[in-house]
């Protein structure tokens, strides 16, 4: 395990379930003996959750930009009027 990203890669393989069974077993053993490694595994798991959350926020922002475009720009006015009419009767 020469480089640190090698270790990070191993953690990833185990967390994402892509590790070979033998490697996963070896990793489990190492994990029991190495608190620092266990710590890294925990924070790396949270990192994936944060990446997902970050990505969803970016995607939502993109979708909202599309929404604004459709409901404010004149070229889309027939579309937006059609939608608005569905809510104007009440």
């Amino acid at each position, binding site marked *: 395990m020469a480089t640190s990203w090698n270790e990070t890669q191993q953690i990833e393989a185990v967390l994402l379930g892509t590790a070979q069974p033998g490697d996963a077993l070896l990793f489990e053993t190492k994990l029991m003996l190495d608190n620092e490694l266990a710590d890294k595994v925990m924070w790396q798991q949270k990192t994936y*959750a944060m990446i997902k959350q970050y990505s969803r926020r*970016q*995607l*939502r922002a993109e979708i909202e930009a599309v929404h604004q475009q459709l409901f404010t720009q004149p070229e889309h006015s027939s579309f937006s009027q059609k939608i608005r009419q569905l*809510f104007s009767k009440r």
Partner: protein
Amino acid sequence: MHSISNTDKLAQRQELFINLYKSAFPAVAKYVGRLGGSFDEAKDVFQDALVVYYEKIVGQPSTLHNDTAYLVGIAKNLWLKRYHQSAQNISLTDLDMPSDEQEESPSNNRLMHFLNKAGQKCMELLKSFYYDQLPLHEIAEEFGYSGVRSATVQKYKCLEKVRETIKEKALAYGDFME
């Protein structure tokens, strides 16, 4: 917000969302409107449905027979669940709802804000790989790395950097996640 170079992908997604809005939103709006819901409710569930849809089709050719019907179905169900609990017909079980419980905690927001500012390039790289599931050669091209290997190393370096940041900030904020 999208200062990094992946403008092509951004433009492609924008086009996709415009098309889906035009093909599917009218049916969702009609449905929500008829049942007494508001424009904002229709917008809310439709945008969540688009996130669910995106996560389903990303990284693979769409296996859905009818993308519009799928989207409309998700949005209707989300609306029933969220705004019309009394409805009899809440089938489709639990969709993987794109709302994370932790998302709203103040320390989580602080951390997200920090990652946005201090680590945006890394976050964009990690997003491209894990969320948008772009192939490494495309990532290398878009982020200006010399090749797949260099992009791979950089991805892990970023992962380590963000991991250390999260750990450091989480310990500093105390109440972050658990």
